[in-house]
């Protein structure tokens, strides 16, 4: 961009501090395989890493499956692969859905 770089008014990026837990939903197939059918969780976390760690603590090994086999939607925005760096807002809706591939 030909506009000024860096932008002087850019505020520092601070991790969000959630006032409400993130609402996390797994696909039915995933929950059938790994969580005994439980699909929905409320998890306090500032990033997706926190969600994955919490789920892995509840269901050991689940974290790796989530990282390798899912696409994640955070407040509707699709991310091809769950990344530790993806930030959550208070009350974020997190859906782990089957991995998508294109042509």
């Amino acid at each position: 961009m030909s506009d000024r770089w860096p932008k002087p008014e850019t505020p520092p990026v601070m991790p969000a501090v959630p006032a409400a837990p993130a609402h996390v939903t797994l696909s039915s197939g995933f929950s059938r395989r790994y969580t005994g059918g439980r699909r929905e969780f409320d998890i306090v976390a500032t990033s997706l890493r926190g969600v994955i760690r919490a789920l892995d603590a509840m269901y050991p090994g689940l974290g790796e499956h989530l990282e390798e086999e899912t696409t994640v939607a955070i407040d509707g925005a699709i991310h091809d692969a769950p990344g530790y760096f993806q930030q959550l807002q208070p009350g974020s809706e997190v859906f782990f859905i089957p991995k998508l591939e294109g042509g």
Partner: protein
Amino acid sequence: MGHGVEWLESPRRDEEAELPEYWAFAGRTATGNRQGSAEGSQSGIPAGADKDLNLSPRGATLAYDSELLSAIRRDAVNDVSTTRYKWVGTRPIRPDGVPKVTGRAMYGADQTFPGALYGKVIRSPHAHARIRSIDTSKAAALPGVKAVITGADFPDHKFEYIGPERVAVNFWHVTRNVMAKEKTLYEGHAVAAIAATSKEIAEEAADLLKIDYEVLPHVIDVDDAMKDNAPLLFDDMITRGVEPTPTKPSNISKRLEFAIGDLDKGFAEADVIVEKEFKTAAVHQGYIEPHATIARVDADGQAEVWASSQGHFVVRALTAKLLNLPIGDVRVTPAEIGGGFGGKTVVYLEPVATLLAKKTGRPVKIVMSRDEVFKASGPTSGASMWVKIGVKKDGTITAADGVFKYQAGAFPGSPVMNGCLCAFAPYEVANARAVGYDVVCNRPKSAAYRAPGSPISAFAVESVLDICAKKIGMDPIELRLKNAAKAGTTMIYGPKLAHGGYIETLEALKSHPAWKAPLGPNQGRGVASGYWFNGGGESSATVQVNADGTILVATGSVDVGGSRASMAIMAAETFGVDYQNVRAIVADTASVGYTHVTGGSRVTFATGTAVVNAARKAIDDLRARAAMIWDVPVDGVIWEEGCAKPASSNVGDFKPMPLKEIAAKAAQTGGPITAAASVNAGGQAPGFASQFCDVEVDPETGKVTILRFVAAQDVGTAIHPSYVEGQIQGGVVQGIGWALNEEYIYDKNGRLDNAGFLDYRCPVASDLPMIEALLVEVPNPAHPFGAKGVGEVNICPPMAAIANAIDHAIGRRLTELPMSPPRIRAALDLPEAAD
């Protein structure tokens, strides 16, 4: 075709007076709509500003198009892009143009090395057979033959589904698709490979191979493959996704189900319910360039592969995995690619050539013939579907249900999940269900093809919606607008849609003057829409600022659809330098960071983000160099319009220092100026497309002529609008082929009857009108310039749009693809039936 002005002025069909507005085409004239468009524009762009629009060569007969397109483009590209940016939204000359038109571009088959051997793959003549034995001794003994390999030479892999669920790769399967072991599962399945000093010797050696086959019953059709008594491809295949787990094996690899709401309640609320069954044919991606590779393995075990693919990092990963090599021992250099469309995201030849090279110590080159491309590389699935939709009289969709059965080919992994997820995605439907089946059959393993899975289910859903609109007497665009998904709509797979763009595509069609233009005898008009997720993910880029101020941008994305131009545009915009000073290249796997395939409409979004991030890093370095030259703190230097400038007068009285001047002092200020960036890009926005077409059906021959095709698509920000239009036009043309002519035709022995472009009929330029691409720009805030993927969703609507137009023209609902002349003739021989 003579369908210009006289076509617009031809008399309306007799029955139109009895039908509602859309079905009667009692609408405005082209002139009236043109005036409306012009009045609606607030752009203030001076006359002639649209002179670079890509207009129909039939512009003389489509006189209103220029103003209409310019109105849309004024609202879109001109206002959104070029007024904000210097380079984004412009149409500079493509950097790959001269090598391609002068024959210098190096495609897969063009690379060679001294001493290279000719590699030949020997393929099964049977659709389904057990390999009792292969005797290679006579072939191997032939002078000039350097190696013969079979499936036994490839390491085996554990039977497990790993990785992404849709493609859930099972390397036990993958290695058997590259080279059969126990059984051959389709005609053309590789069973052995030979490396020889000449083509003639390799072919002679092939004749000396003794392969003892036990021919088995085969199954081609997906419905037949699901029957209880169907021949089984795998004796131990138990359907996944079914509870309780079945005890009996079948050809159904997997069952999927996605659902929201209450279907019974939804259908109970409907005034009209329409349900229908559909079938689509397997179609090939039809890339012009056959698969080709050359590989060599040095004495130290270092392997190098040159290949035409959509992703050389994936070629590296799969080749290394299949041959049990460390990834670091394999280097892959991408060739120029002559089309892929999803079909070059997998490997066929590369592991074979690498293994032959390892055994012979010499480079080995393998090039598929067209016959092999059709028989042994992945087409997309054919399918059998059932769709049921309920609507109220006011057009509200109350419920939608569908069963989608997709051919996977010889091994599991059709795109049926995508088909389920995308089927109803353009619509806000409170009660919906999509059930999918992944079914193996004796065909080549399916591969990705442009929005894999989505066009198939869209054909069924968009056809049923057309029937619904007709039954309730509603304009089909209005029906779609009434139910259009938007930001906040809950999708069948769970989350709410984060980003809109669909409504804008429908509005673009609705305001097109031809939407209400009259039609002639045997002519009809149809509309349809489509949805595709678009992709993001891992990409890498490096930038180098050269001593003369020129800039090199290297990425790991194979340039299939013009990405070198787009990357150069985005880099030029970020640096604030001229496009002509930026050279973009595709680097090999040893020269740039990991980058996922050029597929899923992900490159402009993900790799583009990496390029911008790398450029910003380089700019930070350039600021630091300028600060050093001026001897001021770096915080006192900003970057603007391609120059370092003092942040304020307090910093000092310095003239802006152009990039070129800073580059010239690189040695004095710390050495070469380079930067690299890698991303796992997320937040890509989905793609929506809406299209309408006019057709004319010849009642004597059944031939369908496409008279007009208007394709609107939300493209985010068009970085290089000509390439975006090209993507839309290409997707539509492939959709037209899928709709009207293309199909895999098998004989009773399960052998492909039409493995060549003479008999597998892709549309050519003389079959087509100019495709009018309407760029609708709803920028994606997750990309530095608002880009969205544009490569795929355009292939989703054409099949239904054409089926709907045919129904409109002749009163016959075609439910099976292709809608070829024999099928049209057969339909015309039947009485016109109510839908």
